[in-house]
């Protein structure tokens, strides 16, 4: 029983990290209904940013979040204005291929600049706390993951308030629901889309700057998270910030608990099986609306 409870705790801790990775996609894909296969590469850029600022200037990756978020916000807007705006009105396949092209461009640009070497962050608060843990009712909570989870919760809260309680958030939702109607009330849809891309890129890059404390950094690192992020957004419900958080925690727990009882190869299979199962009863996802 303790074994199962510990697996649930481990899964929840990882779930918060998954949630951070997926939430940027919730904005771009879920809310604005645009496909971005380069989402993992935005994460990779955030991770490289965190590593580079740490290796070059000794900056703690947690502090590097601020400059990385600013740069990636601008980058996300640029991607929309220079690439996605041009393909937005076309066939969805155009968006798919445009972002797949962007994926290869970003990956190979990073290979050209930094080579394919694996990079590791060896300094910073979360790294120093590496082995620290808290024991509670016989269960072990890893301190770095607890801190990361706390940070993730704060970011989610801020994002929830931004989307649900501010004029900007309402304008985003209005643009998503009916672009022409939004225009009639003075909202500039193109600007909202650009800002959504900026926000999505900044959020996933923040996730990257946190993840760099736990994972090695290399040009293809985004791939292992991208597929999971897509499953989480679909499972949680398109455009739902709370749904993303809940689904990410669920995915973390499913992965973790599966491995306790079955060969590890099954853990991703069970994540997608749960998506199929929930999709049968709630095709709009757990917190989604039609």
């Amino acid at each position, binding site marked *: 029983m303790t074994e199962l409870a510990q697996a649930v705790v481990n899964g929840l801790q990882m779930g918060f990290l998954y949630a951070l990775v997926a939430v940027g996609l919730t904005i771009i894909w879920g809310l604005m209904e645009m496909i971005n296969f380069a989402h993992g590469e935005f994460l990779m850029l955030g991770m490289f940013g965190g590593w580079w600022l740490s290796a070059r200037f000794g900056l703690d990756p947690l502090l590097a979040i601020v400059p990385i978020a600013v740069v990636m916000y601008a980058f996300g807007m640029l991607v929309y204005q220079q690439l996605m705006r041009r393909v937005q009105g076309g066939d969805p396949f155009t968006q798919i291929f445009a972002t797949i092209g962007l994926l290869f461009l970003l990956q190979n640009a990073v290979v050209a600049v930094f080579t394919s070497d*694996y990079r590791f962050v060896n300094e910073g608060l979360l790294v120093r706390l590496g082995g620290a843990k808290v024991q509670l009712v016989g269960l072990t909570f890893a301190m770095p993951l607890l801190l990361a989870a706390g940070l993730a919760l704060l970011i989610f809260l801020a994002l929830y308030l931004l989307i649900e309680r501010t004029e900007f958030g309402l304008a985003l939702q209005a643009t998503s629901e009916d672009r022409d109607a939004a225009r009639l009330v003075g909202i500039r849809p193109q600007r909202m889309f650009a800002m959504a891309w900026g926000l999505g890129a900044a959020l996933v890059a923040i996730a990257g700057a946190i993840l760099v404390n736990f994972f090695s950094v290399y*040009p293809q690192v985004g791939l292992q998270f991208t597929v999971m992020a897509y499953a989480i957004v679909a499972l949680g419900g398109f455009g739902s910030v709370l749904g993303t958080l809940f689904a990410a925690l669920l995915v973390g727990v499913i992965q973790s608990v599966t491995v306790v009882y079955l060969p590890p190869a099954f853990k991703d299979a069970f994540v997608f099986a749960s998506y199929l199962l929930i999709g049968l009863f709630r095709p709009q996802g757990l917190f989604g609306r039609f």
Partner: protein
Amino acid sequence: MPRISLRLIALAVLIVAALGVSRTAPAQSKITEVLIGSVLPLTGTFANYGQQYLWSAQTAEDIVNNDYPDLQVPLGPGKGFPGLGGAPIKFIVRDDQSRGEQARTIVEQLISVNKVHWINGEGTSGITSLIQPVVESAGLPMTCHPCASPTLTEKGLRWFFRTGPNDRTMVASLFTFLHEWRDKGGPANLKTIAFFMCDNLFCQDNRKVASELAPRAGFQVVLDLTSKTGATTLASEVQRLQAANPDVLFLVQYTADTNVFQQDAKRAGWSPKVIMTSNGAYSDETWLQAQKKSNGGAGWLGRDPTAIDLVHDRPAWKKVNEIYKKYSRGQNMGELAMREITGLLWMADVINRAKSVEPAALQKAANETKMGPEQLIIDYKGVQFENGQNVLATGVVTQIGWDGEKHTLWPWDLATKSGFKPVYPNPSWQERDSKPKPS
């Protein structure tokens, strides 16, 4: 109908004639350059390995095409191939993005469009096994020197050669060491073992070999786990390993997954008495260098094709390393690069001895190889083939010390030369944190 048949016959005659001319043409004309088709994973999952193979190819090309009078390796002194009138070597390098189907297409193009004389690659056993049939049916010599999967040379292929040791040799070294260690003052209480492997051909071949050898070496296998490559968390796997509590963990994972394992094991506070590994991260120079900042690799033992701490004293190794660093942005040759360069220089020797780029002549010269250890930058006993496998390739057991460097533990004669005292038991995470870091 008769007119169509006549046209078809005429066309067939023309094609046969053209093929006949094209097959005989190279033998008649002077060889201006020797083309090596090199398919490598320069991007994608295995890009980190691919770039080391690229630097190795550049190093070999440099050595063959330029005059290094004092360099005692094949084709070191003199420019180009003396046996081919001084013709230079040229590597045509293509990136397969770490994808098998892409590698197959590239190899087909290299053979039919670029007309290469030899295929080298792909650097990973799994993808190499996919391209072997293409090259075999084309009847061209092919090599993959760092590929360690035994199956690659056990399929009865006539055109595939490997100078490096396979996993059967190298994993056997590990278990022989563990078995003999008891009699050499090592711990007598190592009785149980767990396997934790990735899911591709290389890892699973390691698993199969280890499954055979572990009971013979007196170990009880208490857990056998396989994980999917590219894991975001291995916390539950670590939980199961911790519950099984093996004395020895045999871990075969690539760099990114090894790092995830280290993080999760540290969080769980789990450290078995011995962690031994095979290739993967242990062969990755970037992983090794990163461990110096955290003591993360101290005490890990693994297999290598050479006594890596002793090889540095060889003048040829030093010179080749200098050349390698011109291409690797200053990075030293890791053991993968050593295996690859050794193999590429042997290939150059074969081409030179064949005095031809005809596949049959190259195949004959490769099979007739009898190369002594004095021409190698690595500790093999030499190069000599049986069924495409160099039977003189050896395995060595090394361990990462507190200095972050690898030291030889086995064979015992080399271990004596190395003079290294093994780190045992595998240090706890607290000890790793508290000890001074090498860099």
